[in-house]
């Protein structure tokens, strides 16, 4: 049978506002499948987002959703989790929202290892605001604010998350549709901060300025640049040039923040 997405979507919300070929819809489908696999009670699940194209995602989902200030999704989500530790908290956002404007909140959420799942859709650009370059726009590529090529080196979101202390870090692409829900499922089950970076396409503001003739070209590029972690261990540095690793990149067990905070409350003599 066809997968029943309709029961997870707010009635009357489709068609969504994303451009033709935008991968955010594919990620939303993956997130719905992952929430179904984990059997999350929608009344006990908070989906938090900031501002941007990717941050429109929670608006379509029939769960407890929170659309917050630009870049502050991780901060609001931390608040939700601290007030209601039994709630499942999922954060959605784009690369600009998560690593530039909300970079500080992102790294500190990673450092605390609070039990949330951060799905970060990296489409290499600020899509909604008009195609300005983000920290993830590849060096040399064009954006509306860098018409002669972007001179800045990029942020590798997954490495940033690992460096900041996140205990589950995985990467996939919008092309690998089935891997999206598998990794988000793993992330939801993981106790601690799980970061799932999904490489995405933005045909409207990134693709047309960077010589991608169609959405399909962008999808094929995502397929070509990705190498599974297991396969990469058998490849030489030369073969890995320009490639991106996909799969679970980092996983470890560390004390979770809300549990540790409960201990602090107990020590201080408060009612836990």
């Amino acid at each position, binding site marked *: 049978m066809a997968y029943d997405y309709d029961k997870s979507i707010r009635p009357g919300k489709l*068609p969504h506002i994303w451009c033709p070929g935008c991968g955010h819809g*594919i990620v939303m*489908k993956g997130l719905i499948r992952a929430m179904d696999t984990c059997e999350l009670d929608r009344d006990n699940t908070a989906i938090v987002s900031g501002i941007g194209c990717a941050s429109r995602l929670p608006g379509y989902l029939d769960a407890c959703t929170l659309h917050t200030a630009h870049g502050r999704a991780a901060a609001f989500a931390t608040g939700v989790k601290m007030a209601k530790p039994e709630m499942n908290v999922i954060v959605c956002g784009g690369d600009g929202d998560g690593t530039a404007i909300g970079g500080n909140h992102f790294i500190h959420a990673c450092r605390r290892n609070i039990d949330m799942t951060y799905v970060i859709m990296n489409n290499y650009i600020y899509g909604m605001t008009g195609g300005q370059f983000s920290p993830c726009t590849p060096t040399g590529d064009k954006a509306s604010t860098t018409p002669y090529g972007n001179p800045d080196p990029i942020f590798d979101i997954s490495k940033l998350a690992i460096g900041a202390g996140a205990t589950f870090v995985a990467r996939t692409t919008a092309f690998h549709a089935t891997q999206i829900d598998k990794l988000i499922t793993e992330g939801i089950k993981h106790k601690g901060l799980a970061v799932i970076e999904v490489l995405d396409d933005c045909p409207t503001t990134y693709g047309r300025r960077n010589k991608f003739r169609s*959405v*399909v070209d962008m999808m094929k590029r995502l397929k070509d640049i990705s190498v599974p972690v297991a396969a990469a261990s058998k490849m030489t540095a030369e073969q890995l040039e320009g490639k991106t690793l996909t799969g679970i990149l980092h996983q470890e067990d560390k004390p979770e923040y809300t549990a540790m905070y409960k201990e602090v409350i107990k020590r201080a003599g408060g009612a836990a």
Partner: protein
Amino acid sequence: MSKAKGEVEIIEKYCKGCNICVEFCPTKVLEMDLFVVKAAKPEACIACMQCELRCPDFAIKVNKIA
């Protein structure tokens, strides 16, 4: 073992004509018809779900019929 068969259902008001499904269908069931996808060869569908998985607009549903 007989081959799996599928039935493609297209919700035309959701389709934005991005062409992803047409490109990734292994049996070329789908075709673009003036910015909206249509099932040109519905009998060739093998229910592999590639189009349903990758449609960003929730516009395609594939039902397994055999």
